[in-house]
């Protein structure tokens, strides 16, 4: 018997009255209350002690603390899981963007030169960023209403799926598995890059076929890895493949001579070569291993959102085709040369309603961002440090494969 006349097992019972969820006004006990017989004993005990023992003043034991800890943990786990179950549905991205007043786009880590890079004052530039600004302008009328979120390659699909960004413009190719397994929707392609091969000049290779038995560096986990495999089968040679995951180590391996050749997406390869110690010591082989059409990717299930992306791209190309630039657009709007251009610039109505945008959206895009040619030249072309040619990415009338849809 204890000092207050209770038996040892009744101390145990009182400890249960330390309900650790009392502060939450919840009663969650793992044990059943004692049966009548025990309750009777308790009443007797209380009578003997004169008053109900104040359970809260007893020192909590380790066992009690463990119980409390476990219960809290389990409850917290269940709450978190049920919260995670609810996430934003698809189908109303435009509404979300308008409400937020901001379009969320991915950046790279700021070093994807020509596509998504930051200058020395931290401003984003590059073709991916400009396209994002064009879409932002089409919706919100202002290219500054765009927020760039830096994302790594691994983060891009989860970020898009979870709604961290509204659209994925990150030099990404359209592939079957991205369409069907990851369930995404593509825009038309806005850039056509080819996969090329760089080689040490001293090897005097005419084409990749001469590199039979040699070594080739490739970035692990990219589509070039698969393209290389099928290209080697096509030309019927065998090569030793060295796949490395980090760009800096990969380039280090090629430039130090671990590999004879280096396969990479053309624009990236051109930039690497230009940035190397001795660009003249490396030649771009004439092989065109594969074509990788870069597309904008969106979550499945929002057709209007895909239309907006496609028609913004079309507007950039249409303006280039019709010779409308950010300089001459106001003259064009005052005296539209054709009915088509008049409608395009919002002089006559009908341009925006079907998309859920204002009629002057295309005017805003061209006026504030520029047409496709202006975007390309300042990101990758002659006004940029990379001085790249348009090649396939030119308009159809200049020998390329890009074209706008018809504004009727």
């Amino acid at each position, binding site marked *: 018997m204890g000092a207050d006349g209770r038996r040892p097992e009744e101390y145990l019972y009182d400890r249960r009255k330390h309900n650790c969820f009392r502060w939450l006004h919840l009663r969650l006990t793992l044990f059943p209350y004692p049966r009548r017989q025990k309750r009777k004993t308790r009443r007797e005990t209380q009578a003997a002690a004169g008053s109900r023992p104040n359970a809260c003043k007893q020192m909590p034991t380790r066992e009690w603390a463990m119980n409390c800890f476990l219960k809290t943990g389990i409850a917290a786990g269940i709450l978190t899981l049920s919260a995670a179950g609810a996430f934003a549905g698809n189908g109303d991205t435009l509404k979300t963007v308008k409400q937020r007043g901001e379009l969320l786009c991915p950046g790279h880590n700021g070093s994807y030169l020509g596509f998504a890079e930051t200058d020395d004052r931290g401003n984003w530039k590059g073709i991916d960023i400009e396209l994002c600004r064009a879409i932002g302008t089409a919706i919100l009328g202002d290219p500054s209403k765009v927020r760039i979120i830096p994302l790594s390659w691994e983060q891009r699909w989860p970020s898009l799926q979870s709604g961290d960004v509204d659209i994925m413009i990150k030099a990404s190719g359209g592939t079957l598995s991205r369409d069907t397994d990851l369930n995404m929707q593509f825009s038309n392609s806005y850039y056509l890059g080819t996969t090329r091969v760089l080689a040490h000049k001293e090897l005097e290779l005419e084409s990749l076929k001469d590199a039979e038995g040699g070594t080739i560096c490739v970035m*692990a986990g990219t589509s070039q890895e698969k393209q290389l495999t099928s290209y080697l089968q096509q030309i019927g040679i065998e090569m030793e493949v060295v796949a490395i995951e980090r760009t800096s180590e990969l380039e280090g391996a090629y430039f130090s001579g671990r590999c004879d050749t280096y396969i990479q997406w053309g624009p990236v390869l051109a930039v690497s070569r230009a940035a190397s110690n001795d660009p003249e010591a490396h030649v771009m082989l004439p092989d065109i291993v594969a074509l990788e059409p870069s597309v904008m990717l969106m979550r499945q299930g929002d057709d209007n959102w895909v239309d907006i992306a496609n028609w913004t791209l079309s507007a950039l190309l249409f303006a280039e085709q019709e010779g409308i630039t950010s300089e001459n657009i106001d003259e064009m709007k005052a005296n539209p040369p054709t009915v088509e251009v008049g409608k395009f610039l919002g002089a006559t109505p009908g341009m925006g309603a079907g998309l859920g945008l204002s009629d002057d959206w295309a005017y805003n895009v061209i006026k504030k961002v520029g047409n496709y040619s202006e975007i390309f030249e300042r990101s990758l072309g002659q006004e940029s440090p990379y001085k790249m040619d348009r090649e396939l990415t030119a308009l159809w009338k200049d020998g390329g494969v890009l074209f706008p849809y018809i504004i009727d």
Partner: protein
Amino acid sequence: MTTIPFWRRKKIRRQVLQGAFLAAIAAILIIGATTAQRNLSAQGISSGFGFLWRATGWEMGTSLLRTSPGDPYWWFIFNGILNTLLMGFVGLFCATLLGLVIGLARSSKNAPARLLGTIYIEIFRNIPLIVQLFFWYAVVTQLPNPRNAIQIGHVMLTGRGLHFPGLNVTVLSAVVAIAIMIAALFVILWIAVARRFGRVESARRRLLGLGVLVTGILGAAVALSWGRIPETPLVSLPELRGLNIRGGFQLRPEIYALAFAITVYGAAYIGEIVRGGFKSVGRGQVEAAQALGLSPWRVFSRVRMPLAVRAMLPILINQYVWLIKATTLGIAVGFSDFFMVIAGSITHSGQTLELIGILMAGFLIINFSLAAVLNRVNRAIALKGKQIGVAQ
């Protein structure tokens, strides 16, 4: 006194509590998995393990068994596991040998040896493993190109790898032959050392050992001839042809850069463990052994070493498990280990959750088996109950 009902009995209460706890964890896991499944299918992302039987479409850099782009994901993952095991085995073996030398140097009476050991440990223990790996990789890839190879006899060393004469046999048969030879050597060692053979006369023992050796060599020869690649000479010598060195056996620089880094880094830690083990051997035991007139070598091999190993083993197990996990750094230099194959598969197939699951399960099994085996050894050599306490 009334009998205590079952829910108040301490033992039953504890078991119920633990059962409830396990059930709660299981429930959380199941809820998590079903929620993930539901959310993924709501977004239309396909899940499940069906992709494991799809062709990968990319090349695996290094593999023990033959792989081609048409092989399914599971075959690549299996080869990745083999690579990790190989690297783990080589790394652990070399790190243990080097660590033993370093540890002995650190605890020797010779001052220069102690100093050298200290310098080694302070250098290699305090630089992160990945930095050391990049350093060794840079060193081995800066070696001359194949046309200007460093050549000693038929062994050639270039920035592309180490080339030495090899046999024109399949890799599998070579592995089998080596395994047979190692097994034979172990049996011979067993015959020479084990107490069970102590009663057998030494002449007969020698004959038995010779028999095992001959059987081993014959077995290896059979394995090699079974794996011969037809219409090629038996020995293939490395020689420069075109851009690269062909023929012979090539060891890629990624492999030895990683093995070297793991060995050098692991040895620094193992050296300290070895030193601690020797420190723990009481002076009394050593003095007793010396008093018995044992030679210094016998004092070392029969008294100090066994006692030190007993003290070292539990910490070594930890270190071994850690070193196996360190092989995942191979991804940084392009060694296709388990981790790199999984990482590649994730970006190619997009089946992140499943592949991460496979990765975790794989490492769990590898490290758990290693720890289980070593723990068994530890239990076998640990002091038994009656040996502890006051000498009788």
